């Protein structure tokens, strides 16, 4: 009788243990099953084949674990199936945009002049001023930046405009200036101005630089055109430089976002920003647009995307 009782307890323990087994056995069954069907051997073969035969992707790599009972769906995947669809992609990584700086040095005392196009002068000529008019259209988003424009994007190829024999792009060197040249002083820096082009003395001659903001001239260069900034303001535009009418004459001003010009100078470069191709002159982005059937450029307001 006593022996029987012990057996009963042992037996029940045994039954409990037996009941626990099937779960893991089933999981193994799944693993084994999937292992069998997929023939793990092939994986090694394709790896060695990489050396003998150059495949497009080096061969299919698969993990041996095809056990789907404990799926970790948070594992990082190589699949990037998000296509380019127009939604605002605001990236958290705000590393600065690769701006093709035409050498603007913030130190006013540092005037390094050499014969190459690298001239460090702070004159804020091409940094865009915002327009007070709100933008009804959403911005174009790329690379952590928002590009605002009033007009829709309409591509036309960039051809630099020729403003005549006297106009020269930044960095151009001349040995002497015409007698019509005058001297303008802006923030303790002397500039030589002749017919819409600004020079500084360098290496026995003169090198063309960006027009300094604040420089005032009495007479606009020939060929200047009026450009509309908004309903109440006009600018005057010549050779990539904007002027505002002031009491003393015409003063160089930075471009205002939304201003539309027809021509851009030599020195501007096309930049492909995602799907849109802009033209960049200094720090200013111009969006190719069409206005009344004419190919024009609009000054873009570029803002860093906020989170």
């Amino acid at each position: 009788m006593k022996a029987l009782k012990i057996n009963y307890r042992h037996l029940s323990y045994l039954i409990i243990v037996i009941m626990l087994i099937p779960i893991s056995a089933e999981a193994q069954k799944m693993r084994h099953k999937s292992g069998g069907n997929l023939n793990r051997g092939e994986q090694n073969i394709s790896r060695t084949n990489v050396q003998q035969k150059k495949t497009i992707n080096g061969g299919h790599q698969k993990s041996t674990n095809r056990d789907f009972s404990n799926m970790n769906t948070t594992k990082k995947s190589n699949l990037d199936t998000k296509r380019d669809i127009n939604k605002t992609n605001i990236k958290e990584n705000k590393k600065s945009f690769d701006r093709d700086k035409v050498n603007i040095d913030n130190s006013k005392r540092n005037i390094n002049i050499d014969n190459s196009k690298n001239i460090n002068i702070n004159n804020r000529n091409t940094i865009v001023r915002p327009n007070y008019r709100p933008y009804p259209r959403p911005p174009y988003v790329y690379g952590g930046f928002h590009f605002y424009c009033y007009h829709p994007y309409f591509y036309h190829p960039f051809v630099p405009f020729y403003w005549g024999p006297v106009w020269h792009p930044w960095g151009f060197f001349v040995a002497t200036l015409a007698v019509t040249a005058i001297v303008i002083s802006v923030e303790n820096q002397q500039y030589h101005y002749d017919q819409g082009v600004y020079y500084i003395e360098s290496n026995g001659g003169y090198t063309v630089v960006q027009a300094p903001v604040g420089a005032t001239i009495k007479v606009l260069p020939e060929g200047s055109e009026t450009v509309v900034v908004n309903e109440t303001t006009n600018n005057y535009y010549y050779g990539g430089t904007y002027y505002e009418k002031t009491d003393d004459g015409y003063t160089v001003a930075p471009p205002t976002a939304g201003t539309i010009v027809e021509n851009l100078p030599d020195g501007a470069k096309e930049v492909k920003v995602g799907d849109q191709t802009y033209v960049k002159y200094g720090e200013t982005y111009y969006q190719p647009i069409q206005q009344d059937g004419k190919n024009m450029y609009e000054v873009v307001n570029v803002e860093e995307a906020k989170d």
Partner: protein
Amino acid sequence: MNKIFLIVIVALSLRIYAQESKIDTTAIMILDKMADMIGELSSCSFTLNTSNDAIDVDLGLIKYFNVHQVYMVGPDKMLINSQGDKGHRGFWYNGKQLMYYSYSENNYGVIDAPSDILATIDTVHKNYGIDFPAADFFYPTFTDDLIAQSDEIVYVGKSKVADKDCFHVIAKNEEMSIQIWISDNALLLPMKFVIVYYDINPNEQYEGTFSDWRLNPELPNAMFEFTPPPGANRLRLAPQK
């Protein structure tokens, strides 16, 4: 004591042993075989017709259609010729650089690239936001990645795409679903895929249809070299970072 044991035993026997699995092994088998086949290719070419949705602020959901001719020679040559809403453009990869040229705009750009196709696709996509059609299928860890990012992978059944019998598989998670149609023949090639994005309202879709598959064609290296035509503007491609 005996009664307690009996109750325990009965209770245990009522436990459910089968654990729920939403991954269909048939689907995985088909995907694995397709990926095995792609992994063995030393070169290929195909045409991909795509349609993708975009939301326009004024017009709502718009569909754009594109056609891409893709040529690849492992491990480091690729040519893609695309036509559609972004104009006519091409990408040439020769193992060192990726050249971009727009026939419509007559401008081109050059990007220094890594030494194999997939690293190039990855880098260029991350840095410049350029999408390479159907690139996902060529990742060596395609099936593993799909398993990792899916809550469910199901073999739906048989279907017909362009007169070919196909296996229809769907992989799904909360943000999107990917449907793939794989040809039911010895080659098990991808024929079509549709991605539906649930995290955007209205749900946008991206669809790609493969055709004119050629496996291991002999393609001359010269076709992966690009020379800009005279008068083409060189432009700089702005990186995303």
